[in-house]
């Protein structure tokens, strides 16, 4: 899919749709879509890492937690303005990803999956026990509302706009990355690392860069989440978040431009509409993406793209 005309129209359409939603006047809808937007941000980053560069991470929930804690700690403890804390959190998380990335990304397949899973679990465990810094199981309450240039985002609807502004920005950035030389190199890397290396792709550097980028996406989402709840608690970022993200990626379509959004929105609606069946959430998500893997392995977007290509290409 080429950029420019191919994505400008859907993007504009999405932006219009996003802007229009609050006109329905449903705070519930705004809240659900705000959450969807947050997860979409993480999913977009994760999609770049896995869908294009081919590197699995089962630990990105940890990066979300880091961003959330950074925002929470810096705004409550250090009195930093929310934007500053968000940027600092993103930068800090990026730095952590940078340090971890080089050694970890040498691993492949299931080794990488296990390693990132371990990292994620370590992060969550530490966050719930390192009481001096993270507040342990109590977490960090009283995170102030996000405010920028005197504008306070104190309602869910305002946060919805903020989150989706960031999400759309992140999406555009991801399109830029996909269509750049870097993006093509990532795809070569994901398809066949040895061949890419032979072709002169600086494999290690690019891997780490996309890993850091995806970590930053997650951290930003995490930071915004802290302001969304006015509260930070490590348990919110435990493995269930990772399962939801994976489900969104698989259902939406791994390695497709729109997959993360197409996956995030409906699944978040499912998750938030369960009401008294909330306990079934993980069961449903797990079953959903397992079924998707069996019958819709390329995800909704991927199957659509393949079907369209099939029609164009003839028999």
């Amino acid at each position, binding site marked *: 899919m080429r950029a420019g005309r191919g994505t400008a129209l859907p993007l504009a359409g999405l932006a219009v749709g996003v802007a229009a939603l609050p006109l329905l006047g449903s705070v519930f809808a705004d809240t659900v879509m705000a959450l969807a937007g947050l997860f979409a941000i993480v999913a977009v980053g994760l999609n770049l890492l*896995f869908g294009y560069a*081919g*590197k*699995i991470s*089962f630990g990105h929930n940890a990066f979300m937690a880091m961003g959330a804690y950074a925002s929470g700690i810096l705004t409550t403890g250090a009195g930093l303005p929310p934007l500053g804390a968000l940027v600092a959190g993103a930068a800090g998380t990026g730095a952590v990803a940078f340090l971890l990335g080089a*050694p*970890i990304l*040498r*691993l*492949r*397949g*299931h*080794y990488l*999956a*296990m*390693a990132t*899973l*371990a*990292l994620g*679990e*370590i992060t969550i*465990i*530490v966050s719930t*026990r390192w009481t001096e810094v993270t507040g342990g199981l109590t977490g960090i309450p009283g995170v102030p509302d996000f405010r920028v240039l005197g504008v306070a985002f104190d309602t869910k609807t305002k946060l919805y706009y903020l989150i989706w502004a960031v999400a759309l920005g992140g999406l555009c950035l991801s399109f830029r990355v996909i269509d750049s030389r870097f993006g093509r190199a990532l795809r070569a890397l*994901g*398809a*066949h*690392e*040895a061949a890419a290396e032979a072709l002169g792709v600086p494999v290690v550097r690019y891997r780490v860069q996309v890993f850091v980028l995806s970590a930053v996406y997650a951290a930003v989402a995490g930071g915004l989440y802290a302001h969304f709840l006015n509260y930070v608690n490590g348990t919110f970022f435990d*493995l269930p978040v990772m*399962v939801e993200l*994976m489900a969104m990626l*698989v259902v939406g379509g791994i390695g497709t431009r729109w997959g993360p959004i197409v996956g995030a929105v409906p699944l978040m609606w499912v998750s938030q509409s369960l009401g008294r069946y909330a*306990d*079934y959430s*993980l*069961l449903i*998500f*797990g*079953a959903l*993406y*397992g079924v998707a*893997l*069996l019958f819709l*392995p390329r995800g909704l977007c991927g199957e659509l793209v393949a079907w369209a290509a099939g029609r164009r290409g003839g028999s």
Partner: protein
Amino acid sequence: MLSLLPLLVVNGVVFGAIYGLNAVGFSVMYNATNIINFAQGEFLMLGGMLTLLFYGDGRVPLPVAAAGAVLATTLIGLLIERAAIRPLWRRRAKDWTYIFMLFAVATVVPNAVMLAISRDAATFPAFSGTRPLALGPVTVAPQAFWVLGLTAVVALGLYGFFTHTLTGKAMKAIAVNRRAAAWMGIPVERMVALSFALSAGLGALAGVVVTPLITTQFNIGLPFTLKGFAAAVIGGLGNIGGAIVGGLILGVLEALSSAFVSSMYGDAVTYGILLVILLVRPSGLFRPLVELTEEEI
């Protein structure tokens, strides 16, 4: 602190044996299929939880409940293989698909157990009472001997299976070259199912013996998956004997580090050990049974 050393080591060995059994489950499946079972720890959980379910309030004799649980878990393993893995196998899905799928299984199974059986931690009686026995300077719960005994039996049994039976060698052949194995007449799909059944049964057995020591709950699967994998990697993925040794090493390391490094972060330290191993020596201590192939995702 040092006076605790013998106790720590013994504890470490006992839990290490459980990690070893789990690691064997990983290695068996990896040998036959090159798949890492992210749901391995769930079999262990099922062993304990199903025994609990069948045992109820004690009307069903414990051995019967345990046997039933192991059987049921084995059947569940076969069901998972048939429903979730076989379709992927048939269409020659790429590695990551199996990883994701088994992760989905590792999500569905514990949540199903939580909803259908119980949310709470619980346990059933130890097999031969709780009066501690003396083992040198240490006193040990009798259940620990069951753990060690089972591990020894399993280790010997599997060793014999893979080195002396044609079926065991056929399973090794599949991991080396699936197509050539089929040409020999080896029913690859059935062998894959067999390896699932074996891993599930082993996991369940481990779960049954360890439950009286730690209590069981719907969510104990994941830590055992990670630790079982760590043990398997230490011993060299695919190496059955190595898996058990790896488990023992991990168990002892875990016990020692919880005493001398930190007890506050619990499993995080063990996961840290896993990370170190993966980064420093992913091929493990012993040469793996099958050469690790470089797979592209």
